C-alpha cells in the first residue's frame, strides 16, 4: 500500500483520482457502481448563475475511439444547486468540487461568491474552456489577457482552492497557463474538449445541432498528455491532467508527464466503475516499482 495522498493548494485528496465535470453528474448517479468515498475528488456538473437549458438535441456523436458533445452547460443554476443538490452530496466523504462557468466575468464572480459560502465544497474549478456556448466559456480561455482577467476577479472573492480548467484549442497553452498562475490560481486542470465536428454523409447534415462540438475520449489522449507535459514545465502550481484517460496506465502516464492528480471523464460512460479500478491500479503500480508515495512519480518522465 503506497501513499496516494496528494494536496492541491489547500485541498487534500486521499488519492489523485478525480472525476471530470459533466461526466459524473453529481456523483450519486454512479453510487450503485463505485464507492464514491474511494474517489479523491468529484467535480460536479458545470454550474452557472442562471438556469441554462443547453443546446438542442442532437448533442452527441460517437467518433472513432471518442465522442463529440455539445451539451452547452445545461444546469438549473447555482441557487438550485445550493438548495436542492448540495444537501444531498455534502456529506459524501470525498472532495465535492463545483465546476463554475459563465458568459461574463460578473457571472463567474457571482457564482463563485455563492459557492464560497458552502462549507463542504473545498474548491471550485473555473471553466474558462467550454467550447459549446455562444457567449463566454472558451472565449475566456484562449487569450492570456482574458484568462488573467477572469481568474484575477474570481480570486478576489473566492477564498478556497481555485482550480482553472484550460482549453486545448489554443496555439500556446504554456502562456495561458502562466497567465492563470499569475492571476492567482491554485491549480490548473487540462484539457477540456477539443473542438471538432462530424457529418452524416448520407443526409449531408452535421451530426450535432450546433455543427461543432467538443471531442473527448481515448482519441484525445496524446494531445492531452503533450499539453499537460508542456504546462507542468511552465508553471509552479500543481497541474491536474485529463483527456482520454481510460485506465490506470493512462493515469500513470499523465502523472509521469507532470500531473499531480488526474480526472477521469468519458471513461465513466464506458465503465461506470472505472474510477475505483484506477485507484487500485495506481496503488499496484507504485508497489510494483517500489515507490512509497505518489509524489515519487510526479513528473518522473525520463526524456534522456
Amino acid at each position, binding site marked *: 500500500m503506497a501513499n496516494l495522498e496528494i494536496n492541491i493548494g489547500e485541498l487534500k485528496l486521499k488519492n489523485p483520482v478525480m472525476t471530470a465535470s459533466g461526466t459524473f453528474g453529481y456523483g450519486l448517479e454512479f453510487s450503485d457502481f463505485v464507492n464514491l468515498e474511494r474517489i479523491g475528488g468529484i467535480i460536479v456538473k458545470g454550474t452557472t448563475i442562471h438556469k441554462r437549458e443547453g443546446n438542442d438535441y442532437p448533442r452527441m456523436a460517437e467518433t472513432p475511439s471518442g465522442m463529440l458533445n455539445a451539451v452547452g452547460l445545461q444546469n438549473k443554476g447555482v441557487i438550485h444547486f445550493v438548495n436542492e443538490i448540495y444537501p444531498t452530496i455534502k456529506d459524501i466523504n470525498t472532495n465535492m468540487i463545483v465546476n463554475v462557468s459563465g458568459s461574463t466575468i460578473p457571472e463567474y464572480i457571482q457564482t463563485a461568491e455563492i459557492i464560497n459560502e458552502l462549507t463542504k465544497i473545498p474548491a471550485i474549478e473555473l471553466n474558462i474552456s467550454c467550447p459549446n456556448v455562444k457567449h463566454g466559456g472558451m472565449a475566456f480561455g484562449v487569450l492570456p489577457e482574458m484568462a488573467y482577467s477572469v481568474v484575477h476577479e474570481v480570486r478576489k472573492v473566492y477564498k478556497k482552492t481555485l482550480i482553472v480548467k484550460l482549453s486545448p484549442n489554443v496555439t500556446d497553452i504554456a502562456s495561458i497557463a502562466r497567465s492563470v498562475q499569475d492571476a492567482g490560481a491554485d491549480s490548473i486542470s487540462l484539457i477540456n474538449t477539443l473542438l471538432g465536428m462530424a457529418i452524416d454523409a448520407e443526409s449531408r447534415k452535421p451530426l450535432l445541432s450546433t455543427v461543432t462540438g467538443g471531442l473527448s475520449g481515448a482519441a484525445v489522449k496524446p494531445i492531452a498528455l503533450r499539453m499537460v507535459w508542456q504546462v507542468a514545465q511552465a508553471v509552479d502550481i500543481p497541474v491536474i491532467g485529463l483527456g482520454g484517460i481510460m485506465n490506470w496506465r493512462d493515469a500513470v502516464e499523465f502523472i509521469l508527464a507532470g500531473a499531480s492528480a488526474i480526472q477521469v471523464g*468519458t471513461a465513466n*460512460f464506458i465503465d*461506470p466503475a472505472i474510477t475505483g479500478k484506477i485507484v487500485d491500479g495506481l496503488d499496484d503500480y507504485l508497489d510494483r516499482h517500489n515507490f512509497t508515495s505518489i509524489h515519487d512519480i510526479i513528473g518522473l518522465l525520463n526524456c534522456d
Partner: protein
Amino acid sequence: MKKFILDLVVVENEFINGSHFILKMTHNKPLPLMQPGQFVEIQIPHSTTSFLRRPISIHYVDTSKNQVWFLLQIKGEGTQLLSQSKVGDILNCILPLGNGFSVPAQFKRFSPLLVGGGVGTAPLLFLGAELKKIGIQPVFLLGARDQDSVLQLNRFNKLGTTYVTTEDGSFGEKGYVINHSVLIDSTFDMIYTCGPKAMMVAVASYAKKNRINCEVSLENHMACGVGACLCCVEPTKEGNLCVCKEGPVFNIEKLSWQI
C-alpha cells in the same frame, strides 16, 4: 432500482430475418428485477471504433430460465458485432436502466393497445406478457415495411390479438399503423407505443385527439445511460430531460411535441 454491471452469457442468438436477431442472455446468479420499457447498456466487445455502449431495450424476461432477451436490428458496426455473438460469449451489461411503462395498480376495466413499429416493437413483448400476468388483455398493433419485417408475430399472437400493417401491403392492412382500421371507433383506454419518431408522433396525436392516455418510449442517442452526461435530452414541459434517466418512457402530456 439498484443498477448492476453484469457479465451476461449468450444462451442463444436467434436470427429472425436478415437484419434482426434476438440475443438471449443469462447470468450465473438471478437476474435483477426488470420492468417493461427499461433498457440495458451493452458494451461492444472487440471493437476498435464502437466506443460507447449500446442502449438496448429489454425485449422479454423469462424468469423461469433466468433469461433476458434483446431484439436488435443491425444498423452500424456495434450491432453488426453483436449480431456475431455465439453461445457462451460474454457481454458486459449495465442494467436495468431508465423507467418503464406505467401499469395501473388497480383497475376494473383496462384495455390497452400496444403499438410498435420496426425494431421498436421490442419492449412491447415484455410489456404484453407482464400485463397478461396481472389479468389485463393486451392488444397489439405492429407496423413493418413488408411481410419479412414483421417481427415476432407468433410470440405476440400468443399473448393477445395482434393487428399488422405493412407499407407494401404484403401482410395485414396496407399502410402505416395509424391508418389501421382497429383505430376507428376504438375503445382503448391506454396506448403504449415504441418505434420510429414519426410513427410515435402520429400515434400520440391520435391518442390526444381521442383523449386516450398514452406513453411513448424514446430512443434518443445516449452516452452514459444514467443521467450524467445530459446528451440524450428531450424537450419537455419541465425543460430538457434525459431520456436515459427520466425516460425512456414518457407520458405524452409531459412532452413538448406539437400534437
